[in-house]
């Protein structure tokens, strides 16, 4: 087995590159004052110093990581503990999972955001309501619509993804859990806003 640990080495190189970008590109271009600035005839620490120190810390870590990669230290350490090799533990399958999870979550929250206003726009007239959703965001039942709909999608999608089938249990949970959480916050507390009602 070669001493060389490619995964660890690449990880170190990636972070070294990132740190260099932080210190020499991002921080100088995206801060107003420099490392130090002269104010009222005195030198003071500017806004760029602290993030540069953070970048330096990442760079030191990255160099050590490269060093550990070259000597294969991490792999040996893990071999001694029956733990799978950590570096390079991020596979494309992992990234695929993360992407899917994010998409499901984002979709749930978009539904949460727009379900209520859409319902008011479509059904408001039938119920004889002229007000906008904004004016109704503290009124039952309108204020719960988006939250319960978005929560339903979130929970149902997650459970189905694991169980690989649609069960009655999953459906019940997806309907009841958002309702219970909504009640938990909304009934006892007057001032609290459930999502998405603070964004209006």
């Amino acid at each position: 087995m070669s001493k060389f640990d490619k995964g660890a080495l690449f990880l170190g190189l990636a972070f070294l590159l990132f740190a260099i970008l932080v210190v020499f590109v991002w921080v100088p271009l995206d801060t107003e004052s420099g490392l130090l600035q002269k104010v009222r005839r005195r030198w003071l620490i500017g806004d760029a110093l602290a993030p540069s120190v953070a970048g330096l810390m990442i760079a030191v870590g990255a160099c050590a990581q490269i060093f550990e990669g070259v000597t294969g230290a991490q792999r040996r350490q893990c071999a001694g503990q029956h733990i799978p090799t950590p570096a390079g533990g991020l596979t494309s399958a992992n990234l695929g999972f993360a992407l899917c999870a994010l998409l499901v979550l984002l979709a749930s929250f978009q539904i949460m955001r727009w379900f209520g206003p859409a319902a008011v726009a479509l059904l408001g007239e039938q119920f004889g309501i002229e007000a906008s959703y904004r004016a109704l965001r503290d009124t039952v039942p309108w204020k719960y619509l988006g939250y319960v709909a978005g929560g339903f999608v979130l929970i149902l999608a997650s459970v189905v993804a694991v169980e690989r089938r649609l069960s009655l249990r999953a459906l019940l949970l997806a309907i009841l859990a958002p309702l219970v959480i909504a009640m938990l916050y909304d009934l006892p507390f007057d001032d609290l806003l459930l999502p998405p009602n603070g964004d209006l």
Partner: protein
Amino acid sequence: MGYWDHVWLGIVAVFTANPVFEIFGLPIGTTLVMVAAGFALGIVVGATPGLAGPMAMAIALPILISIFGVRESALLPVLGFLIGIMKGATLGGAVPAILFNTPGTPDAMLTAYDGYPLAQRGLARKALKTAHFASASGDTFSDLVLFSSAPVLAIAVERFLDLPEKTGLIILSLSFIAALVGRSPAKGLISAGLGLLVAYVGKGEDFYPRLSFGQEALNDGFPIVTVVLGVLILGEAFKSMEALIRGGPEASTQAKIAEATDNRFGFAELRACWRYIRTSAVIGTAIGALPGIGSTLAATLGYAAGRRDWARRNPGKPGFGTGRIEGVAATEAANSAVSGANLIPVLSLGIPGNAAAVFLILAMESIGGFNPGPSVFKLHGGVTGEVANPELVVVFGIFAAMMLANLLNWSCGGLFMRWVGVLVHVPKQLLLPVVLLLTLTAIYVQLTSLTAIYMTLGFGLLGYVMRRLDMSVLPFVIAFILARNLEDTARQAFAATGGDALFLLHSPLALAFTLTAGLVVVLAIRRARMADHEPLDRGH
């Protein structure tokens, strides 16, 4: 007002302030009820694989803030509840480790080494009783050390440390956390550096919010809850979800094992375990007092020390790992002794040592009126005044709440713990999505903006990737929390010394802190390189 007046006010604040109800004319204070409720919840949560103390603290905090508001009278009930969870979860963590060989936390992993074999021999109750006794002992010892040393340390810091030394001390703590928390000091440094970087987005002195790419949502940086909950809670939830999706849904059946006849934990058992509990309590307390080195290492070291000691004294007999109550005792005493001592750096320096401490600091920051650090230990400006220092009263309130939790632990913790063991255990795939929705809702309720939710999801992704890369997330979170303090103190030290760029090197103490910080990092990296020559003793 004197020291003891503050102690008394703190005790009164916990036991009788804002009474919820009365028993025989004795008012029962809100905080008292909250500590008890938190403790009970903590045991349940600790005993539920897939949940853990910090996760419960994270979810409870926004709800608690909704209940009690952000006024000063909210501090003790909220902190009391969180402390209750922290202590309860430590105890509860032993339950699934012993009964099902599924430790909920890494600390409890070593408990399973001896606890599960005992359970298989029908001695589950004996193992649970041992775990309870050891845990309560370690916890109480650690709290006593906290009560006596935190004020002394704080006063020393206040008296001997000027702004440059304070800056040096924060750098030292950071390097400690970065180099020693995870398996790899290199990744620890990267993790801590990322935490600092994220904390510095938006939050500068200039009007333009630095590092924000001109995004208005970042005008005041990333809200602390989005970062902490995203990386700690969502990251873990993503990882567990993935494991579930790949591994299929969790089965919840357990084989029944007939109980053995002798399930007592009596004087004989106490005598057998006492020396291991003693050693482990000291190890756990010492480790807990150092910022960043959590209960897992404490449990590991306590177990390892106990195992060596037992083997030396009982040559030839089957040792730890074969189902010895001494093994359970050594682990549980060590990991429980961490929680009290962990508050030493929190209260006296404002530096969190582990995830539980992070949430206590988060509570203090969210509610306001209590800024942990040396100044809280002042008797009203150091001079006898008429008025009490409200922050010192809170400190003693916290101590009283901890003692209260210990009393609960000794009196009914063991019973409750064994009772929780028979609770049905909810399949993880049903628990996780609900926890996720609850956490995100809690964040929204506090920040009232979907942007905050999206930020949290982003940090959840970061936490997930870091976990996959075996990069410890704790240095990230702790560095994030310390970042502002570090920059502020450095700015102030620089200004106060009239622009001395070498302020870190000009006083002996500041120089010592800075050099030690560098040394810690260098030694940790060297040790990692030598790892194969001298393998770490990690039990198995």
